């Protein structure tokens, strides 16, 4: 199947990009890595009047550390995230999650900005950004606007981006000391979108775990992908764990609490009940591992 006709534009600057967005409005689609947009074009599921290829817009492809934290340009490819020592150091959660994104040929093109702007609820990076408390910096002719990741994802393929805005970069705050991060997902095949995924962080209340017991959890962040219309912060489960030792009974209680956090969809790959169950398993495994980890 071949795409329906569209006009192809390749702006050389953000200003040109904004001109094109003004000109086409909803009929224009931003092309970054293209690993989701191009299949949709090929299948004629997306039939925009114009495709605006921002790959040649300069200064969107850097990873740098600034006083606000780790700043990742929208055009940074997933493969670059995977290999970046800065990402490994300052956002180990992202480093853990990225290898789960598709296959290497997909990550070679796919970008972080594209993944966030698309807001596929099963995608890994949006969940990571919510878990990390990242800020998504949108750019438009009017300037830059910061949106907390938690407020950015509104629903399936829906974000807080306003007309005329694109994702310019994402700011991951400097890692507070003591946090440990983990990402796991359950996908039918290597590289598939997950039936359920979990980006999690824990901060021990005091000290590390003893030889015999899991540590007391001071703070915890649980954000799931694949189990809702957007990344889902599991606040009830977090509450059930905070201040507790992550032993089997507490994990089980957190799993029950998780039911109140989730309202997963069903599709050909799994029913809501399956996704709910798998999310509980992930919670137990990831938190159990992080809380029991010898630091």
């Amino acid at each position, binding site marked *: 199947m071949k795409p329906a006709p569209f006009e192809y534009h390749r702006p050389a600057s953000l200003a040109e990009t904004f001109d094109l967005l003004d000109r086409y409005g909803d009929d224009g689609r931003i092309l970054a890595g*293209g690993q989701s947009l*191009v299949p949709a074009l*090929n299948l004629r599921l997306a039939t925009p009047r114009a495709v605006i290829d921002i790959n040649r817009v300069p200064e969107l492809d850097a990873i740098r550390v600034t006083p606000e934290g780790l700043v990742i340009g929208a055009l940074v490819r997933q493969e670059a995230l995977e290999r970046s020592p800065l990402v490994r150091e300052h956002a180990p959660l992202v480093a853990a999650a990225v290898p789960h994104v598709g296959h290497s040929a997909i990550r070679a093109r796919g970008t972080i900005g594209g993944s966030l702007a698309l807001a596929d609820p099963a995608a890994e990076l949006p969940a990571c950004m919510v878990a990390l408390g990242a800020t998504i910096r949108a750019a438009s002719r009017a300037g830059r606007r910061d949106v907390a990741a938690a407020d950015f994802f509104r629903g399936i393929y829906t974000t807080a981006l306003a007309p005329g805005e694109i994702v310019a970069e994402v700011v991951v705050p400097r890692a507070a000391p003591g946090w440990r991060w983990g990402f796991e997902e359950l996908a039918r095949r*290597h590289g598939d979108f997950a039936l359920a995924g979990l980006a999690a962080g824990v901060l021990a209340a005091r000290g590390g775990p003893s030889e015999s017991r899991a540590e007391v959890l001071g703070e915890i962040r649980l954000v799931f992908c694949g189990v809702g219309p957007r990344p889902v912060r599991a606040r009830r489960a977090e509450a059930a764990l905070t201040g507790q030792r992550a032993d089997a009974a507490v994990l089980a209680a957190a799993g029950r609490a998780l039911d109140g956090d989730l309202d997963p969809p069903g599709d*050909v790959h*799994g029913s809501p009940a399956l996704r709910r169950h798998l999310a509980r398993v992930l919670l137990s495994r990831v938190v159990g591992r992080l809380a029991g980890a010898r630091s």
Partner: protein
Amino acid sequence: MRIGLTVNGRPVTREVEGRQNLVDFLRYDLGFTGSHIGCEHGVCGACTVRVDGTPIRGCLMLAAQADGCRVETIEGVAESGAIAALQRAFRAENALQCGFCTPGMLLTAQALLERNPDPDPVAIREALGGNYCRCTGYHAIVQAVLGAARGRPAKAPDAAPSDGAYIGRSVIRPQTARLVAGRGVYTDDVAVPRLLHAAFVRSPHAHARIARIDTGEAAALPGVVAVVTGREMAAHCEPWVGVLKNYAGMKSAPQYPLALDKAVWQGEPVVAVVAESRALAEDGCARVRVTWEPLPPVVDAEAALAPGATVIHPELGDNLVLETRIKSGDVDAAFKAADAVYRETFDTGRHTVVSLEPRVVLADYDPADETLTVHHSGQAPYMFHDILSRHLRIPEHRVRVINKDVGGSFGLKIHTYPDEIATCALAVMLGRAVKFLADRVESFQTDIHSRDHRVTAEVAAMRDGTIVGMRLDDLAPVGPFSMYPRSSVVESGQVLRTTPGPYRFRDYDARGRVVFQNKTPMSQYRAVGHPVAALVMEAMVDRVARELGLDPVEVRRRNLLTADMYPYTAPTGLFFEKLSHEESLDAVLDLAGYSALCAERDRLRARGVHRGLGLCVFIDLTVPGAQTYGTGGARISSQDGTTIRLEPTGKLTVISSVTEQGQGTDTILAQVAAATVGVPVDDVRVVTGDTLVTPYGGGTWGSRGAGIGGEATIQTGKALKENILKVAAVVLEVDALDLDVRGGQIVDARTGESRLPLSELGRVAYFRPDQLPKDFQSELTVTRHYVPRHQPLAYTNGVQLSYVEVDVDTGFVKLLGHWVAEDCGRIINPMLVDEQVRGGVAHGIGDALFEHCVYDEHGQLLTTTMMDYLVPMAAELPDIGVAHVETPTAYSEGGFKGAGEGGVAGAPGAVLNAVNDALSPFKARVTRVPMTPEVILRALGKL
């Protein structure tokens, strides 16, 4: 827009359309046809090319985006020598069959080795995990990459044994040299002038009346050449009916290339649009307005037979295609006398073939010559030839069907697809060349599906595990038509007939009902019915063992047919000349180290790790003989022919009616010809797949290439050798009986001393006949045909063993190992048999765990992309060990039986039994495939 880029080191400047993707640009604008198109949504990896050094999906990048980039394709890296080690290793390990995935696989492997020069198998499987191969099961690919990485010398080739005994040798396939260089010529690679492209408006409904079709806007679109409705096309094409007269009471309805008044499945072609490009044809389709009146869809098989059900073809009276009953012995008495009776219902999911190369047809009609030339991605060129001739009313001698390289087929490409017939009709109507390629969504909606069965089985057993009787009820919904010309009832028939296959009990009562429904038509796909039959039987055998507290191996030994029982006619009427169940069972247990695995399983189980072992004994129908096809009225040749021509320099050209889709048929024919005539195998060239050129015959399906084509080649080779010796005898003035042909030389039969090179014999025969006696005519081109007459089918057998670990929290299954002992009779090329088996196992594992055509209650197919229909990839599959037992058939000189399908037949049952073994501590049991996490967790009571 205008783009400039470097392709394989050379600068290129071209005008491109914004919507054109990179792989289309490379293939169709620049002619780099080594990059293939398999899905167009980024899952299969066939279009992998390197852009600025990095492998990417060519279908997910626009050509315009490659402006200024450095692009490398398989052609470039092959010609530069950059992947020579990988190419050598792929060929030596036979890590490619049809070759369609190979360019993408090689480019991905190349990048892996650049970044990790010494990867382990896990890293290789992960790195190649985004490249789909339907043929190999990935085992050989992993081995090849390992070999290339470690600079391990390629396997010592068996190509030129000094004794000329090529039968039983792992000769490397000659044609793979082309395929690893991206030089395959698949149907979509064929270039013809003034080519037009067809696309189809398809029914969005499972069942709906066509009230009105408005083609005006489409026809007015620039670039659109024709818009044709079903009514218009019907004038040019006779409809077909997929019934066979040897199935009493069978019924189906006439099928047209384009639906006339109503559509009966979602995806049925309704209107054809022909345009200057595929993209334009699709633009035209988007402008055709069809007014639909939806009808109630018939989706569920039970509901289809219920009183008051909507009847899909009212003129047929009901939705029953065929009901079959097989009864043998006294089942009621057997059940009454039994110590125990077990009953279970199995559901096997609807699967489809997903050959990486989709269905493609390029039809070229020359009105001046009144000839239709069709390039076709097919398995059975003469069958297609006959159908085109009769249904398009073109005299047979004015049709030509050519199958060049075929990118996998597996039984998909032996059926009559309406869009393919429509394309050929369009070529005739327009007097032009027209191409149609089923894109991946169309493939899922219109390629045959298969294996959708609900089977209720009841087994009667004695306390010692002896099975004394069985009842079986099979319900098989097959879509709205029986496929033509092979029908859609064979699969259910095979389920009925092969289920008791390996076992001794004779009291058997089976009923099969085949029903119409509004889903994609189902028909025969690799190992027709066998995976279902073996799964049901073997799951029941394990059930008996478990319930009675017996060892599953021992229960099998107590029930299997034994070596002293042959020849044996089964209660279902099947005839077994000689099978090797006991030997094969021992061979697979030995190969796997079964008792150590049992001990490991038990040890880990105590620690909460849930592993299971599952056996599956199977029989496999191969080499369908003279009693098939024609007896039911199907004009399909069960006979094949081979021509061998001795060339003047002593080389052989072998021209055969069997066909090649990656199995290595060409190679085994070359081996047989070389061994029979007495020439080096490198001196043999094989030609197949052209109805203008080859002897009349069938093609390749039903594991018949070796058993029929191989035997025809033996007979031809013998006759040619006799003729060669007659010439030699005249030239050398000795008795022909004192001479032999060995190593391309006429030799003294007794001493082996060389008397005359074949090149000299050829020179004399062809260019100096004046030197031969006046009454002597040399005949150095010989044709012989062969059809098996002594048994209807050559049954083969084997045993599979699967070792799995079930994560009882998630329901995920990890395959730890898979082993097969198979007996395909006399083996021509062990490496090719291994790879047939491994590839088949991968299909069967797909059935067991992943693959499923899922429909909603309206008959809408929900799994229309490779993101939703899950085929197993490298990272999901285990290493697959293969052992051989050889029981040649005595009915042919070669003793060859078939090897193409046994791998599929036994795999789903083995994996099901292994999963159930793993689940046994929980008293949980699964009786449906695919065994998704959902199915397993439900069995465990966790959902």
